[in-house]
């Protein structure tokens, strides 16, 4: 059963497509004329999740993972092959006309505005479509203007807008009717840093102010880090991870990196000694614990005369211990400690799939 504050409920959702294989060459083409080989593509394969009212969830995955297909089922565009979808107490594809009143949608790759007419004309038409009163319309436009600064190009046809301007307009258009739920499919795709920032700023404002639930897909993990407490990772139609950003970092981000900036060249001579003592430390701490990491989970490398880098598995060797060894061994100007970036972690999941979670410790 659904909880009261659950706004999106998805259970064992599937979407399969039938595609035709094309055979090679002239002979293949002739064969294809008569008998075509069918192939079943499982774009979304038994996906389940719930989203609570007011949540901002990041939905990520490599190209072709099934993100867009999921969004299209959630927005009522596609009919699921199997499974259950319930959003805002609607089954999206069954009651599309009523359901779409309660959602806002932005597809970063396309615009929902009318291409050849001025932006404001599109907004006026949308105002009619969604039955927004003139007062609400003016109030919301004023708010959108504040953050997205639309005034400069409201009278320009959409086809003449830059991608950043267009995306801001699309975002405003999707929220004209103040929907409780917003779907964003790659809203920052192809945008420059400033445009991305203004869109993130906007989402950060409306989410708490209107209690708007937001599900967004993206390839830019900075979007997720700035906006979403929860992420879902999908690959080959299946959900691989569903949890918080901290959780995934804790579970999979095991590598830390320390960069040392030596005080002067004379310190170089002491590196070998540091290396030896670190190796000893690593051996004692990680004896028998995990052999999967090469060199006992620690690696020291000299970058140039004044700089060297230590990469280690922080689950095996406490950072504190390494720092103590460093301070004992040589004099430094500066020390930089970095944890594995979310990009690195996600890259690992994309390339290894489920395998990425196998080696992890609870």
């Amino acid at each position: 059963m659904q909880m009261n504050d659950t706004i999106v409920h998805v259970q064992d959702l599937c979407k399969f497509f039938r595609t035709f294989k094309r055979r090679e060459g002239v002979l293949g083409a002739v064969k294809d004329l008569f008998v075509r080989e069918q192939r079943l593509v499982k774009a979304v394969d038994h996906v389940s999740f719930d989203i609570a009212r007011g949540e901002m969830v990041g939905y990520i995955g490599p190209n072709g993972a099934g993100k867009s297909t999921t969004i299209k089922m959630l927005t009522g565009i596609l009919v699921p092959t199997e499974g259950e979808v319930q959003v805002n107490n609607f089954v999206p594809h069954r009651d599309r006309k009523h359901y779409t009143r309660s959602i806002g949608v932005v597809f970063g790759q396309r615009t929902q505005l009318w291409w050849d007419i001025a932006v404001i004309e599109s907004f006026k038409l949308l105002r009619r479509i969604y039955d927004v009163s003139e007062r609400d319309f003016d109030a919301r436009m004023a708010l959108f203007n504040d953050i997205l600064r639309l005034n400069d190009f409201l009278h320009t046809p959409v086809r003449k807008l830059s991608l950043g301007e267009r995306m801001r307009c699309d975002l405003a258009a999707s929220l004209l009717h103040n929907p409780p739920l917003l779907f964003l499919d790659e809203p920052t795709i192809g945008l420059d840093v400033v445009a991305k920032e203004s869109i993130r700023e906007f989402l950060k404002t409306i989410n708490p102010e209107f209690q708007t639930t937001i599900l967004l897909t993206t390839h830019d993990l900075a979007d997720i880090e700035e906006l979403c407490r929860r992420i879902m990772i999908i690959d080959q139609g299946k959900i691989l991870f569903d949890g918080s950003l901290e959780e995934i970092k804790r579970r999979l981000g095991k590598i830390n990196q320390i960069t040392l900036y030596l005080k002067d060249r004379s310190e170089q001579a002491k590196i070998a000694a540091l290396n030896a003592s670190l190796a000893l430390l690593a051996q004692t701490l990680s004896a028998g614990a995990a052999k999967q990491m090469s060199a006992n989970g620690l690696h020291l490398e000299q970058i140039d005369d004044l700089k060297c880098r230590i990469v280690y598995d922080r689950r095996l060797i406490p950072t504190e211990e390494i720092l103590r060894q460093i301070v004992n061994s040589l004099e430094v100007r500066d020390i930089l400690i970095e944890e594995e970036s979310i990009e690195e972690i996600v890259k690992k999941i994309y390339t290894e799939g489920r395998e990425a979670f196998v080696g992890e410790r609870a």
Partner: protein
Amino acid sequence: MKNWLQTYLEFARVGFVNILAYRLRYYTGVITYFINVTVYYFIWRAIFTNSDHIEGFNLKQMTTYVALGWIIRSFYFSTIDQDMANDVMEGKISMTLIKPIHVQWSLVAQSLGESCFRLFMLTAPAAVVIALVFPMSGPSSALHFAGFFASTVLSFFIVASINFIAGTCAIRLKSILGLLRAKYFLLELFSGLLIPMTFFPQSIQKVMNYLPFQHISFTPVLIYLGKIQGPKIWEELGIQLLWAVAIFLIGQWWWATSIRKLSIQGG
């Protein structure tokens, strides 16, 4: 109801404004229609050299028939089918589906806006140019002209609904350019645009009586020429209206069953 009407009037307005962007196209459009009429005029003049009357038409009536057929075509045609085919192929159809609108009505309303725009930018200038050059007869009476006008508006709705049905086929077939081409030629032939329906063999005429196509061009022009008289005008208009409603409903059903089969992969 009031809201509903306002929404779709707004769609018509957008269609009207939208097409403004392409107004240059209409200067060449006037020339195209003029050339079409010229070609058919000379063909018919050649045919009429040996006889004064063919199937109840004299040369002047025939010239009027052909010229008027093309003139009203510039009003009643719509690009719903091509637009839908493009939208499905490019996946833009999603953008329509995320809005709480009746897809068919919104497309028809938008086309109506475009047609109203064309009435001034294409139909009227083409009519003036053609009437100045070729010997055309005027409408049989004011009443006949009114009937002709109403009939042409109904033609618009018949064509729009046929185009919607054809466009919806794109959902299942993906590429429907061939289908649209076939539809284009069938409509030209069986709407009575190329030759009056009375020129067809009896057997074909009988079949066509049970189909909507001849009500697109043949019926309005016959009303103009006064070949349909008195209460018959009302009857013909009624039949047109019934066809318009029937095809609209078929389109609605066809859309509802087709949209469930929509598949857009990627993007």
